[in-house]
């Protein structure tokens, strides 16, 4: 089979038009991450138990409203909107975190406990729970737990929680459509690999 037949087999070459390939032919429509709020139809290649698991997890709720609000504030402190891409909460990161802690239950206790730790610390220092603090007060606390290399030893629990919160935020954000575009990943579509572009080889000293 030649390349043209290959792409036909893949269903990507509509009647004689190769132009489809120039576009994001494998992407779902639009520029936004589709919201997944229930189990999508069972597609080929998904095992029965996987489908059932996803369905069941959607039916469960782990975080309460207050916890979700706190997660949302933290996620947007970690990944705020800038000139290149939206903030974490705009691409569904809090909802992703709600799902993934149910899917990977090892996250549950450290997340719940960490959120509580944050509120108690906020209360002791600023007399209110984290989400009710002024932005500069929130940042003052985050500054104490966001940098493992300079954080005080007594903040270790907060640092650990924030590391996890940062990881989950990054996982949710950079697997979203907007996050992938922000990173500039341009693969996952049929193409031809002929090697590193010559100008880049030159820039890195592999081509004179």
């Amino acid at each position, binding site marked *: *089979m*030649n*390349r043209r*037949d*290959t792409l036909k*087999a*893949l269903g990507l070459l509509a009647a004689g038009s190769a132009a489809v390939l120039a576009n994001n032919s*494998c*992407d*779902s429509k639009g520029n936004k991450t*589709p919201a*997944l709020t229930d189990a*999508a139809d069972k597609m080929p*290649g998904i095992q029965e*138990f*996987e489908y059932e*698991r*996803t369905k069941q997890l959607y039916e469960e709720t782990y975080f309460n409203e207050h916890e979700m609000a706190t997660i949302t504030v933290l996620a947007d402190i*970690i*990944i*705020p909107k*800038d000139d290149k891409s939206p903030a974490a909460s705009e691409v569904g990161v809090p909802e992703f975190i709600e*799902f*993934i802690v149910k899917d*990977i239950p090892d996250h549950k206790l450290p997340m719940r406990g960490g959120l509580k730790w944050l509120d108690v610390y906020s209360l002791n220092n600023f007399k209110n729970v984290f989400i009710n603090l002024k932005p500069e007060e929130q940042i003052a606390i985050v500054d104490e737990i*966001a*940098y*493992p*290399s300079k954080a005080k030893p007594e903040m270790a629990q907060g*640092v650990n929680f*924030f*590391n996890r919160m*940062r*990881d989950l935020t*990054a*996982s949710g954000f*950079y*697997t*979203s*459509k907007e*996050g992938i575009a922000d*990173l*500039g*990943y*341009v*693969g*996952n*579509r049929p*193409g*031809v*690999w*002929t*090697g*590193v*572009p010559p100008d*880049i*080889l030159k*820039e*890195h000293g*592999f081509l004179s």
Partner: protein
Amino acid sequence: MTSLQIIEDSTVYDAIVVGSGAGGGMAGYILANAGLKVLMLEAGPFFDPAKDALQLRWPYESPRRGASTTRPFGEFDAAFGGWQLEGEPYTTETGTEFDWFRARMLGGRTNHWGRISLRMGPDDFKPKDGLTDEWPFSYEEVKPFYDRVDRLVGIYGTVENLPNEPDGIFLKPPAPRLNEHYIMRGAEKSGVKVIPGRGAVLTEALPGNKDRGTCFYCGQCGRSCKVYGDFSSSSCLVIPAMKTGNLTVIDNAMVREVLTNDEGLATGVSYVNTKDLKEYSVKAKTIILGASACESARLMLNSKSKAHPGGVGNSTGLVGKYLHDSTGAGLGGFLPQLLDRKRYNEDGVGSVHVYSPWIQGNKKLDFARGYHIEYWGGMHMPSYGSHHGIQNYNNKVPRTDGMPQESGGYGAALKQDYRRFYGASVGMDGRGTAIARKENYCEIDPTKVDKFGIPILKFNYKWSNEEINQAKHMIDTFQEIMHNMGAVITSGIPGADTLYGLATPGKIIHEGGTTRMGNDPKTSVLNKWGQAHDCKNLYVVDAGPFVQQGDKNLTWTILALSMRSAEHILEQKNKLNS
């Protein structure tokens, strides 16, 4: 259930093949194409990559974003199964370790494997160091079969004329990625040769084959290929063999026992349907086991009869012995030269673009044999976890934005760091020879059964100094290569306390040796055709027959030897008929 009925099929097939992976698939393909009536039994469901592959799915198409909760290599990986299967446990002897990966599906583990396709060399079949037993044949005897596998399945690579790393019949290899250019430069300074990879991916149309597409460079071979652009036993052997009309596949059929008659010859197998739990028995003139090294051994040990009190093929007591996996250890980090790199599509192929064969021999080293090196890195599709742990490395290079030189962080500066480090990762893994030892084995756990009532395996495997010293050599060498290419190591450098990062036995998923071949029926289970010494119409065609694997990933050798065994079956049949 008040009665348990065994449903008997009166058909006598020419052959029954148990398992549909590389070994079973090839045997079924050869025999069905030669006109034999073949029945293939697969413990898992039917799987056709054209329809069932999760290739080209984006992470946001699933709420778990590619996490490995339901599949160990991520939810889009092709393998149904994993290290633990619901209701099908295994045990390990106290103080020993083994992790057993099973894929229950048509094509087995070939649907997701790395497609790295290396021939074993002359010294692997006839070792010069005397440390392990010779195979009952030489490389020269296997070479014609390797050649035919190359032509039938397709493999890219380059002719290099290296010692003990035989060349094949190659399609063009994929060009190196940017990080691989740095690897080649760094490795060269360390005296480690890096050559184009050898992979079972169609980088060009396969001459004479109209059913398979060519690679379109998505880099996702692990998800299996919808256009059959890489080798899976399902797409390239079993499904084509079904088209001959001579191969019948029954899926969800977990084989319980090989049935034998009073003379000790195999007459068929019994199996349980894993969906409705009904019991069946089917008959054939020849039984071929390709269920995977440990699963075939388990089946033989569980097939006890008057003629075979210790299990069929096990009159020596050697079934399950000489179990060996590959060694594995690795390092990872990033290349500062690739920070803030220009973006373009470098997905490439899903197998290796470059690798380092072991060509230095092992003189003056404190371990036997050697290992090859597989490399990784670059701009890949993000998935759950791919951006975790930035606090472990984002302070390891000077900042350019005036922010404090601290690890971790948040906000605009952190967002900039994720962009900055994207695609700068680089690393390498060694895959080496682990010595096949009688003392490392699987056996039937005397007290436990799985959910079908089939006695389960118990593993007993320990690494020796040969493997531990080899892992130390890997880590020392990898540190040097990373240093010479200017990379920063972020994975940590494993030391003696962790056996230098040496992977747990089984973890590399190259297990073999459990039904080894040999000319002497007292010291081997199978003869040189893969035929049981004590049951002439029983063959094993997975990695069980391996006397000793080299540092080469074993699939290509499984394919070549299964083809050879299948043709031996045909020759025997023709002799009877003439």
